[in-house]
């Protein structure tokens, strides 16, 4: 059981491991007449792997989109690092250390694996447009420095062989891995993973689980994870939030959630 404490390499000063990194409170999100999220509150503590589960259409992806600023909730607050706000903006979320992957893999398809992950370094590179235009000075120097960081990520994810391949040509499992690499390149404090193992075979799932554990333990990255494979969820996560029809129906450790009658009903159906 990983408790989120005693993580090595944890250098962020503001939030200590185990304290609340992000909290959503009374969030309501609707599209026209459709209520995607109805008054949901939960928190993510620093250093933990937080799973968000629920049947299809429960509002899990909408929740991630709210956290990362793609969707703006009608009411409710999102408190990140002690700073409450009504809505996030994707650019702000990224600069403050929230990275994510997407349910349907959103890669830059025409670009190589290397360029995709390098794109994740954009915020870390500070050279001027002029320097880039003449390709001299800081632009050239930083390209080399950041390439080194990216090569480490490529080694970590074991995707050396596909470095120069346009990602549109890669099989689905590898695309998911490249997408994880791009998110890692931003050096996130909070990593949102939207079904990182959807459509994978057993071996690929095991690889991905291993990467998630390594990222969490070695880099101390906090994670929020949407996943349908219950075995994976129960093994990987420290705490599980369960959504159904946009409502939070259970929240607790994997053991508690598994025994919760409402969760069992939501998944297996219940006769009324």
């Amino acid at each position: 059981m990983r408790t989120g404490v005693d993580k090595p390499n944890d250098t962020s000063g503001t939030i200590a491991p185990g304290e609340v990194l992000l909290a959503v409170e009374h969030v309501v999100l609707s599209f026209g007449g459709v209520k995607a999220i109805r008054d949901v509150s939960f928190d993510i503590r620093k250093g933990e792997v937080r799973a968000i589960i629920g049947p299809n259409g429960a509002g899990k992806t909408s929740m991630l989109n709210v956290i990362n600023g793609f969707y703006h909730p009608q009411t409710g607050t999102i408190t990140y690092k002690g700073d409450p706000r009504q809505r996030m903006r994707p650019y702000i979320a990224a600069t403050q250390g929230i990275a994510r992957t997407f349910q349907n893999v959103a890669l830059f398809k025409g670009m190589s694996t290397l360029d995709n992950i390098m794109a994740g370094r954009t915020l870390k590179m500070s050279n001027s447009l002029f320097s880039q235009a003449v390709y001299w000075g800081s632009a050239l120097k930083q390209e080399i420095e950041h390439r080194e960081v990216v090569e480490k990520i490529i080694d970590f994810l074991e995707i050396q062989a596909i470095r120069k391949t346009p990602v549109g040509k890669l099989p689905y499992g590898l695309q998911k891995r490249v997408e994880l690499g791009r998110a890692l390149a931003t050096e996130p404090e909070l990593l949102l993973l939207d079904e990182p193992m959807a459509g994978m075979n057993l071996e690929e799932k095991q690889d991905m689980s291993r990467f998630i554990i390594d990222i969490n333990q070695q880099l101390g990255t906090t994670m929020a994870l949407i996943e349908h494979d219950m075995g994976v969820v129960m093994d990987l996560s420290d705490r599980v939030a369960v959504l159904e029809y946009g409502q939070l129906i259970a929240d607790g450790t994997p053991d508690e959630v598994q025994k919760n009658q409402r969760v069992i009903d939501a998944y297996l159906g219940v006769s009324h």
Partner: protein
Amino acid sequence: MASLGNFIEVLSGGLLAGVLYSLVALGFVLIFKASGVFNFAQGSMVLLAGLALVRSLDFLVAHSMPFAVAVVGALLFASLVMAFTAWVIERFVLGPLVNQDGLTLFMSTIGATFIIEGAAQLAFGSDVYPLKLYPTDAWFALQSLFPGGVLVNKLDVWGGLIAAFLVAGLAIFFQRTKTGRALRAVADDHAAAQSVGIPISWIWFVVWLVAGLVALVAATVWGTKLGVQFSITFLALKALPVLIIGGLTSVPGAIVGGLIVGAGEKLAEAYLGPLIGGGIEYWFAFVLALAVLLVRPQGVFGERIIERI
């Protein structure tokens, strides 16, 4: 021997004229590559850049400034005008349309075309303004080989040099720099680009700025050739077959497409013209483009369209 000389003359003239089409096509490619938008307004941007350049140049010269200084001043002024245009387009046309369909963005550039054309002529006038930045006289090469030599237009040679320089620079910018990568990233996927912290509004501003500067370069060459006037916007039409042949997503493709169109239409005019009655130059490029569309819809250099099912 004379016919070979004639052939070389037609071919070189055609290739060099083709480079000038490439200069206009480049602006299209840049914006399409970088934002997935087919920018219908590129022709009008050439007009705007040209008018800003020639009018400020005339103004500075009329106020007894040395010609070289005046040219630098006018280029700076025109660059500023293009930067302002880029900002306005990002802020009021494209900015509100983030995450919208490519066709929606395309339609919005058609609207921008009319506004730019109107505003440019309102601000800078609607006459024909002569511009003389490059030598326009002819040059007779290879006189020892062919009687009378081969006629080469010096302006076309300048155009070729400028285009080569521009393409080399743009290729490095796109492939090797942070902003270049971010541009391609935004073109592929808005949401994913936002998620890694690429500021879309800044990227779009840069794209339109670069396209505006390319339009300015095209305007210096075409303005010297034809004079700066409204009909310069029709160049955009000639750029379409260049784009189809070269591929919408390829900078080198824009150059090669231009060469093929330029050489093709001049050769067809010279050799097919007498047989079928002439006037081929005006439609040849479009027929060529149709043929390419049938055989290779992504163009000679375009990215293969990969679709997973």
